[in-house]
């Protein structure tokens, strides 16, 4: 397959000198110059999904990177213009397929805002419980794969085993483990099944020792600390300027979480903390996500102990035709700020849906974060950004 990276439609100051970029048949041996161009991906055991990273190296040190994405581009935003609002709901799960419930929450809330309806309190509580469970599941997957990239093989199996409990709850609730399509515009479609509260409470008792287990393997581990401390540092100013959100931003010291800053879906009723880091390195991002898992447990506990009775679906017309207008609504997905910009033309099909993907914007920061690091650290930094290519490419 032809490599199109040499056909550029615009030249300019890039971090990579494109004239050096000849990956197919180097006419000149490129080991004699100081700079080496190495291609990682798109198929690679470490890059979580189909991501191609072109590294420009000076020996082992990384001088610059360029990410080539789009291998998983499915045209979700174009599809949205050809489906009704209700029909588009299952598509949003497929973007960040690891945290499908969050995607659905963001979308349903955005459309509800556009319709100017609100989900009833019971639905909001159910939404919070499932979203927080999904946050834990997403962080577990991140932890397993990130540890595997750095060389610790065992946490992967532990996290995936424990994640099963969450997926079992999802399956009993809505029939699907991964791409759940859990929520509907206006509320939830499914009532909590018999035993839902009991199972969630069982999970709340079951899980904290597991987090302790993961931490026992990694947090104090000398090798882990050496591999992650001061690796991939991004300062708070850089993070804000690059639009990085989520645990990456919080690890750089910015105490900002949309669940607290602009609460949605009953988060204002719960008491939880926002962990922040100090250095903005990989270790801090690891700690932030571990603490976030514990805080999610706290939220779930408060929610499941206080689910109000009532209807689970708000007053939404059968045919969803929001009035003409635009709305932007964002939520705190496990990866960062997930936003939906919906333009409605008054018909049953959205005129434009723009998904603001946290992984896409976070991935942009990769270049800054790996400058000066060694090649082995690039893999660690990609892992710590917690990107899901389904969301990056949509």
């Amino acid at each position: 397959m032809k490599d199109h990276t040499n056909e550029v439609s615009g030249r300019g100051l890039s971090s990579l000198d494109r004239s050096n970029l000849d990956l197919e048949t180097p006419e000149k041996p490129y080991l004699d110059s100081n700079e080496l161009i190495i291609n990682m991906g798109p198929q690679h055991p470490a890059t979580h999904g189909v991501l191609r990273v072109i590294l420009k190296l000076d020996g082992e040190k990384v001088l610059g990177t360029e990410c080539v994405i789009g291998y998983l581009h499915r045209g979700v935003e174009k599809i949205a213009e050809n489906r009704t609002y209700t029909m588009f709901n299952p598509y949003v799960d497929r973007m960040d397929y690891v945290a499908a419930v969050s995607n659905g929450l963001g979308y349903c809330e955005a459309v509800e805002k556009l319709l100017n309806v609100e989900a009833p309190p019971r639905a909001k509580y159910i939404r919070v419980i499932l979203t927080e469970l999904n946050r834990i599941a997403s962080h577990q997957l991140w932890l397993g794969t990130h540890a595997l990239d750095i060389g610790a093989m065992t946490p992967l199996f532990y996290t995936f085993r424990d994640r099963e409990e969450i997926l079992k709850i999802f399956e009993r609730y809505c029939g699907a483990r991964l791409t759940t399509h859990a929520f509907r515009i206006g509320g939830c479609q499914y009532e909590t099944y018999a035993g839902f509260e009991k199972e969630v409470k069982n999970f709340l008792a079951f899980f904290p020792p597991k987090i302790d287990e993961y931490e026992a393997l990694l947090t104090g581990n000398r090798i882990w600390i050496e591999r992650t401390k001061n690796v991939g540092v991004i300062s708070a100013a850089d993070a804000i300027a690059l639009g990085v959100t989520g645990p990456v931003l919080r690890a750089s010291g910015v105490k900002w979480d949309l669940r607290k800053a602009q609460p949605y879906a009953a988060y204002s009723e719960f008491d939880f903390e926002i962990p922040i880091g100090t250095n903005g390195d990989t270790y801090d991002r690891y700690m932030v996500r571990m603490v976030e898992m514990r805080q999610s447990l706290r939220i779930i506990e408060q929610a499941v102990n206080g689910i109000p009775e009532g209807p689970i679906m708000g007053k939404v017309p059968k045919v969803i035709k929001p009035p003409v207008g635009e709305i932007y609504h964002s939520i705190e997905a496990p990866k960062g700020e997930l936003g939906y910009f919906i333009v409605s033309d008054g018909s049953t099909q959205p005129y434009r849906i723009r998904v603001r993907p946290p992984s896409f914007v976070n991935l942009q920061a990769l270049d800054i974060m790996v400058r000066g690091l060694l090649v082995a650290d690039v893999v660690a930094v990609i892992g710590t950004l917690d990107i899901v290519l389904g969301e990056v490419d949509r």
Partner: protein
Amino acid sequence: MLNQFTSYLGSNLTPGTANNQLWALIYVLIIFAGVSVAVMAMNWLERKALAHFQIRLGPMRVGPHGLLQPFADALKLMLKEDIIPAEADQFVFWVAPLIGLLASFTVYTVIPFGPSQAVSDMNIGILFMLGVSSLGVLGIVVAGWASNSHYPLIGALRSSAQMVSYEVAMGLAVVSAILMTSFNETGTGTLSMIGIVQSQQQQGIWFIFKFFPLGLIAFAIFAIAMVAETNRAPFDMAEAESELTAGYHTEYSGLRWSLFMLAEYAAMIAVSAIAVTLWLGGWMRPFPNLLHAPAWDFLFSLFPGLTFLGLAAIALIGTARMPSHSFFRIQRIGLAVFAALLGIIALLLLVIAVAGRSADASLAARFNEGIGYVYWFVLKVAVFMYLFIWYRATWPRYRFDQLMKIGWKVMLPISLGVLMVTAIVGVLVK
């Protein structure tokens, strides 16, 4: 030839020292077979233990509980297409795994499984070991070079740099142990492997506990360095799959690749054997001086039999727990046969232990003694093997520059320091 065969029986020298080529050859063949079996067992244990660490079962289908998996792997690798890159240097490509294998296996000529159970008791045994095991580096570099592809080359250079750096610390730790052999009345130490174990026996203490914590630190340095020497986790950056440089054996497939793996496992067993010999008392049973009475001797001589009995019991329990579905019939039978085999060996060993109870020179007693020595040695080496697997399951891997930093900036100064302090303490205590 028969003369050569019978003249050695009853001797308490190693064949090398007794100048008996036939028996040396027999010992070499026994070691070769034993190491091959050990490597297969190690392969099985690695997959099973790693799997159990990761809450999964590992191979279960190929034999009962995957016991025949190593055979299946060996067969598969032998039947695989032998791909040699067109641009590769053909002869060098062919010879590289052999060099590695040579280096790993030659070390076994000096490893003592007992006071006369070694191929040869060279009086420079430890020097020989250090020298020959360094040849392994050559095999790796040659393999990387012969592949004519820059990823394996980079991987090979890294592996070799790593091995060379940790050789230094390893050597210094070994020198500390050698030094300890000289802390006796005559003040002369020995480089002979058998001599080192005998001096531990004579001084009545395993060198790991000598001048606590000096022996322990020297042992720790060696234990860490040997993991780095054999390119095992957490020092396996050079051959890890998720890294860009996929290691020196990338271009090798099938049997050639399996030769590299054989060399790696053999090297692991060899360096563990060195560690056991130098610090953990080699073939000695626990407390040979303290618990000296014949009753204790008898008790400890039961251990081999009891170990096999325990293994047989585990296998029997496994058989009992297998589902009684017809799909599992063959596996059940196989495991039961395996259990029976283990039981028979156990019985045999117990009979020998009982018959050789008295300390006379009867055949049973000599067998008993020899089995005891080999058993304790193998047990200690097996503990190290398990530790290797445990390390791999638990820890992430070091980045290459961190690995080199540890080798040169941490291990080397500490081992130098331990050596000096050991020497000073040895002189003072005298």
